[in-house]
């Protein structure tokens, strides 16, 4: 290599922008001398490195040389490459200096160099970016060198390879390295990258490839408009960066002497680009672990020299004889000369002697070549440059496409047919889904019946929407819709089903405003079935202007937004009331609210308000008011949702014409898909399309998107295996609980391969299914482990483990149990217990990592209970039901306990109440009471009644009168703890009669009043009250004891008692007659008699007892 010794300072500023160095000629032997100086060893590489440039310049190469040496290059190429690598390890950055040198090298070179310089300034910026990567890359490069040494080139050159070490150590290579056509060199790039790919060290591989790609991408981003040349720089720059240290050392070592030739830099940049592009492919190959990649590319190198990009210029390759050079590669350091040591990754170190380039071969050769173009170039150089530039541009474009659709490069010629696809894609950016969207009613894929129902509902609006303008239902564009209707109307006679119900809805009378009964149609169904499309098509079909609002987009003008209340009116009204003013065709609006299940409840309430409020106004009937308020809803609204059971939708659901979307028929979908595929030039068999349908659950959108995706990746054919192994088009499907239970309790029908649906499936399984004949026993294979995986996947994907487990618990006993010894049942219950423990640990101990074990419960159930027959499943309601009843019972108990008198309450908690007390207490409070008046009760009975009343009061029980649904009245215990303590299947306890309960209720009421009064009295009387009360108490004898003689006797006794107290004082009391006393006592007593004299009520006179006495 030629280096200007003085150019070291400028080198940093002006990097030689030669891409070739980056491409392959990194290992330039270093000589720090003047242009003529060179290193013996790697000089062939120098020759090679020089040649392309000169060939690019020289239109007329020396064909004989090229032909004559044709077999050689294959052997020489790897070797020279290797040498180059080695040399690079020593340090190859002196190319920079060479850049300066080159200016002295003839006019043609100067042209080049100046151009290079111009770009070099740009490159310095680039380089700084790559510097960071340099250190890593260096390690890789060294490793690659070693690899290359080890693996050597492809078959043609093993001999040369084996000879190589010898040559390296002992003598200069005598056999001149073959001058190789550029094409070869260029083609050798893939070989190199491929061999790189085949290297054992994966990390290095990935790093290198990724690095290259990264670099290129970054570069593209930076350069933008004119990417060609600069793209090639990074490699070279990186090389420079990498070996900057060595270079400096060398510079010091060499002093005045210099080494190397700068010519190596002048490789056509596009070659480098090609190399890199190939490298990308090679990387793919490497990623796929195909070691034959290297061999392939080597083969390519040999076989396809015609793919030389330089041929574009119409020039045949130039081949010159490389100059003979002496080399010295020594095992031990030479004593006299300067040397560079090179260490391979295997640890062997050799020493390269630095020599003055006495023969100045490099310069001479170059000069010889330089002279050539001046005379031989048939075409102006500028023209050639343009051509080269154009070619580069094309290649960069190609490379970028290649990068974009990188993973698809499965076949070796993937990059070749990438182009049309890429072009096509760039021309048509629209999704197929939009492109092939049905425009007409007949094109709809969704279920016919659903379509018809919606259309018919929409037609119901005709009277109010179109009726005034056009007489009747003339503008009915749906002649297709009507015959089926009549046809359908006949059916319901046989089936009294949902269908009939829907029909009835549709047949229903219009309301007073001639609007249909349901103002809103609610379409619901899983995504991708074409609901929105249907709504649009039908609206257009029926002569409306479809106005779509997406409820989940929070644009302030649309319906569910923050300022919903204010704006929803304006947003809704124009759509529903006015005709579109701007449209040339004056079609009435039909509002389509999409994704309404995502709308907040408030917005749905607004919608409901609009529907209802105007109803009410309509009933009010005054047209003026209607007009002022914005009028009634006169346009149809179609709402679309995925989940009709969203709580927010509940009120709307009751007021809307509900249409649930059935699954699209796979056959129809497959047919449509095949049409699309046909039109897009894809080959797709019906089987594959059906498989696709099945995989995506008949999701039209997903199917078409998958097709387009495959198409854009260059797949021209769709096969069943592809669909099955493909991970595309899978939805994160959330199956309904019932279907999951069904799958758990039912054995899969037939050995249906469920590949691709479960990412958990090991790759080996997938491979097994890819080539079925190879495995042969796929059916049995899928029986256990695949079932296991499938169910596991199912249960993982359904988030409701708790519900799932409940459903299993409720249903597993109905499943057919195989063993009669209940073993499986016990096992299943063990599992349930286990999952319960897990759940408890998760919820109470916050150990959420245990959640991962919950999905195994369904798997266990599946393996235990799966049967061939379809199970009869019931929704697990018993647990929530039980919970509700438990809460109810607890509330009853709580109500009872809260009213129990404190003294009793401290003794009975809820638990005791339930376990010990309540049942017996209810027995106790149902004594046998004679159905007669209380007055007629015996003493004991009265006592019993009093006790009963007091007990009930203490325990906060009363009887409340209730009207039964039959119209009768009944007394019920309140709180009705009977439900808590009585069990359904036990013999009913004796109940009190209605009269008895009435009596007790009345007594309870009285007693309660009495007590309240006593409390009041005690409070009012304060301190006085209590002694008085105590005094009064003996006086208050029960009614039954208040007999006259008792009173008389007591009065007498009291008198006697009082007498001694008042004895000392002679009072007039004793003087009073006993009769009077008695009379007073009797008269004042609570007992008094009323004597009604006379026969009738006409003659009546009050007669007091004192009058009698």
């Amino acid at each position, binding site marked *: 290599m030629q280096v200007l010794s003085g150019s070291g300072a400028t080198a940093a500023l002006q990097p030689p922008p030669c891409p070739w160095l980056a491409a392959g000629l990194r290992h330039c032997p270093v000589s720090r001398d003047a242009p003529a100086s060179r290193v013996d060893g790697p000089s062939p590489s120098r020759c090679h490195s020089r040649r392309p440039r000169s060939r690019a310049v020289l239109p007329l190469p020396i064909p004989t040389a090229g032909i004559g040496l044709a077999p050689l290059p294959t052997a020489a190429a790897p070797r020279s490459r290797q040498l180059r690598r080695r040399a690079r390890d020593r340090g190859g950055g002196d190319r920079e200096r060479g850049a300066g040198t080159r200016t002295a090298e003839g006019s043609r070179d100067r042209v080049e160099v100046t151009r290079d310089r111009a770009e070099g300034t740009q490159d310095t910026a680039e380089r700084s970016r790559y510097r960071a990567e340099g250190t890593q890359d260096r390690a890789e490069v060294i490793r690659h060198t070693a690899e290359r040494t080890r693996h050597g080139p492809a078959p043609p050159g093993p001999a040369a390879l084996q000879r190589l070490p010898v040559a390296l150590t002992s003598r200069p290579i005598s056999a001149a390295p073959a001058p190789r056509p550029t094409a070869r060199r260029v083609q050798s790039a893939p070989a190199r990258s491929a061999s790189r790919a085949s290297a054992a060290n994966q990390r290095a591989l990935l790093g290198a490839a990724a690095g290259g790609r990264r670099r290129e991408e970054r570069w593209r981003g930076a350069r933008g408009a004119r990417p060609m040349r600069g793209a090639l720089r990074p490699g070279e720059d990186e090389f420079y960066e990498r070996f900057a240290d060595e270079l400096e050392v060398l510079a010091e070592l060499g002093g005045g002497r210099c080494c190397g030739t700068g010519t190596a830099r002048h490789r056509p940049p596009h070659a480098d680009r090609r190399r890199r592009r190939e490298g990308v492919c090679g990387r793919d190959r490497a990623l796929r672990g195909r070691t034959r990649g290297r061999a392939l590319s080597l083969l390519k190198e040999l076989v396809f020299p015609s793919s030389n990009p330089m041929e574009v210029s119409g020039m045949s390759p130039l081949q010159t004889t490389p100059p003979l050079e002496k080399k010295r590669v020594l095992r031990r350091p030479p004593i006299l000369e300067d040397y560079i040591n090179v260490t391979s990754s295997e640890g062997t170190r050799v020493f390269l002697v630095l020599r003055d380039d006495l023969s100045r071969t490099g310069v001479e050769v170059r000069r010889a070549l330089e002279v050539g173009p001046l005379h031989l170039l048939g075409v102006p150089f500028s023209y050639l440059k343009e051509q080269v530039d154009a070619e580069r541009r094309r290649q960069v474009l190609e490379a970028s496409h290649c990068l974009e659709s990188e993973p698809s490069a499965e076949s070796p010629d993937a990059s070749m047919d990438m182009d049309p696809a890429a072009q096509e894609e760039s021309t048509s950016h629209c999704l197929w889904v939009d492109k092939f969207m049905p425009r007409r009613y007949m094109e709809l894929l969704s279920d016919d019946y659903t379509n018809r129902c919606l259309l018919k509902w929409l037609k119901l609006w005709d009277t109010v929407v179109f009726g005034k303008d056009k007489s009747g239902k003339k503008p009915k564009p749906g002649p297709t819709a009507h015959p089926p209707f009549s046809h359908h109307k006949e059916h319901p006679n046989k089936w009294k089903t949902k269908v009939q119900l829907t029909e009835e809805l549709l047949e229903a009378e219009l309301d007073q405003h001639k609007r249909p009964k349901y103002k809103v149609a609610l379409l619901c169904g899983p995504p991708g079935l074409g609901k929105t499309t249907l709504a649009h098509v039908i609206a257009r079909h029926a002569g409306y202007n479809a106005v779509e609002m997406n409820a989940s987009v929070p644009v302030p003008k649309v319906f569910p937004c923050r300022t919903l209340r204010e704006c929803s009116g304006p947003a809704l009204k124009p759509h529903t009331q006015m005709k579109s003013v701007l449209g040339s065709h004056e079609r009435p609006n039909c509002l389509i609210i999409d994704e309404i299940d995502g709308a907040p409840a408030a917005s749905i309430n607004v919608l409901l308000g609009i529907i209802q409020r105007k109803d009410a106004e309509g009933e009010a009937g005054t047209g003026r008011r209607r007009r002022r308020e914005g009028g009634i809803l006169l346009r149809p609204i179609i709402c679309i949702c995925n989940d009709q059971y969203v709580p927010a939708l509940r009120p709307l659901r009751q007021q809307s014409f509900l249409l649930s979307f059935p699954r699209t028929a796979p056959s129809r979908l497959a047919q449509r898909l095949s049409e699309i595929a046909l039109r897009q030039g894809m080959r797709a068999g019906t089987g594959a399309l059906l498989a696709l349908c099945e995989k995506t659950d008949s999701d039209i959108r997903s199917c078409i998107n998958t097709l387009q995706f495959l198409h854009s990746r260059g797949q021209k054919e769709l096969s069943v295996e592809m669909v099955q192994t493909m991970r595309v088009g899978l939805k994160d499907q959330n199956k309904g609980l019932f279907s999951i239970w069904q799958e758990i309790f039912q054995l899969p029908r037939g050995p249906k391969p469920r590949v691709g649906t479960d990412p958990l499936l090991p790759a080996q399984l997938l491979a097994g299914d890819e080539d079925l004949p190879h495995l042969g026993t796929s059916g049995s294979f899928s029986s256990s482990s695949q079932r296991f995986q499938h169910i596991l996947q199912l249960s993982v994907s359904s988030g409701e483990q708790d519900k799932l487990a409940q459903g299993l618990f409720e249903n597993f006993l109905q499943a057919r149990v195989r063993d009669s010894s209940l073993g499986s049942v016990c096992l299943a*219950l063990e599992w349930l217990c286990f999952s319960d423990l897990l*759940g408890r640990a998760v919820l109470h101990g916050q150990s959420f990592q245990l959640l991962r074990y919950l999905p195994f419960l369904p798997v266990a159930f599946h393996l235990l209970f799966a049967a061939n027959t379809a199970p009869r499943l019931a929704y697990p309601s018993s647990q929530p039901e039980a919970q509700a009843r438990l809460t109810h019972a607890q509330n009853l108990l709580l109500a009872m306990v809260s009213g129990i008198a404190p*003294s009793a309450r401290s003794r009975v908690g809820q*638990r005791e109440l339930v376990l010990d007390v309540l049942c017996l207490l209810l*027995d106790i409070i149902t004594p046998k009471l004679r159905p007669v008046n209380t007055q007629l009760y015996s003493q004991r009975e009265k006592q019993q009644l009093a006790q009963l009343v007091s007990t009930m009061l203490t325990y906060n029980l009363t009887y409340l009168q209730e009207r039964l649904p039959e119209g009768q009245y009944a007394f019920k215990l309140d709180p009705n703890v009977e439900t808590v303590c009585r069990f359904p299947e036990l013999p009913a306890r004796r109940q009190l009669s209605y009269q008895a309960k009435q009596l007790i209720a009345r007594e309870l009421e009285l007693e309660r009043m009495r007590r309240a009064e006593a409390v009041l009295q005690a409070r009012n009387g304060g301190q006085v009250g209590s002694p008085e009360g105590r005094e009064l108490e003996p006086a208050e004898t029960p009614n039954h004891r208040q007999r006259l003689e008792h009173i008389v006797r007591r009065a007498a006794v009291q008198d006697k008692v009082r007498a001694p107290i008042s004895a000392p004082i002679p009072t007039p009391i004793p003087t009073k007659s006993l009769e009077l006393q008695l009379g007073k006592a009797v008269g004042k007593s609570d007992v008094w008699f009323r004597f009604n004299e006379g026969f009738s009520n006409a003659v009546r006179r009050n007669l007091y007892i004192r009058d009698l006495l």
Partner: protein
Amino acid sequence: MSLWADKHRPGALARLDFHREQAARLRNLVQCGDFPHLLVYGPSGAGKKTRIMCLLRELYGPGVEKLRIEHQSITAPSKKKIEISTIASNYHLEVNPSDAGNNDRVVIQELLKTVAQSQQLETSTQRDFKVVLLTEVDKLTKDAQHALRRTMEKYMATCRLILCCNSMSKIIGPIQSRCLAVRVPAPSIEDICHVLSSVCKKEGLTLPHELAQRIAEKSGRNLRKALLMCESCRVQQYPFTADQDIPEMDWEVYLRETADAIVGQQTPQRLLEVRGRLYELLTHCIPPEIVMKVLLTELLNNCDGQLKGEVAQMAAFYEHRLQLGSKAIYHLEAFVAKFMAIYKKFMEDGLDDMMF
């Protein structure tokens, strides 16, 4: 008063009917005017509360019997309001902290703090401490129990705790060691008979001894139950006869029928029926451990002696799980299924033996 059980409850330690020595010891305990924290435990219906109230009356006089219900609302640190009602006299406070569920810790801390921080005004005439009676301590969460152990020491000067529970096993060691444990065993059959006849005498009824005996046996040595049974017998039919029907608790009858159903047939269908019955029991607020216990006794009555050990062991296993888990029905049913499996196997083996 209302029920016999309430009406004839002894109000003083001296008038207790059984465990008299213990009553005497308790009297000695309080006679010096002070006593440590107490942990009273024993089966329900043995008279724990009665003894505690007698003790308090001994300590404070008849004032403790003037009870009132107070509703307190406590704010948890999480700003959650907890409503809890307490039964209080001037001298003591009774609270069931497990009413507050998971927040029992807050309840205990707050209540004890408020009670303990108010000093008695007249220390000359009154005791200088109040008593806080915590019931159903065995239902306390571990958190609350740990909170309790610090509080117990901290407020020792101004308040005494009496803890009341059925089983001491669920109370953490530190609390057990801080308390004087008083076990109130269930009364013996004779004790119950004695109490029954004395109550009947007070009511002016004559109770045949045989009937008393039968009631006592049927009550499972639960005095409260025995008295209630006796009273309901009285309601049913007054002139008592010795062979009179004794009303039973419905849930016990139901469980017995369930056990019969289990023993009668061992199929998944029967298991399904049993599940329904278990649900029924649980929704009637019968605690699952009681269900398990009674079911086990009923099953043991029905099954062969050889099986008893195994069945009991299984029951213990599943009850342990029941305590650990949260969905009682799974564990109960697992027990039933296991029993069915074992029983079925046993029966089939027996049949095989008979065949050969």
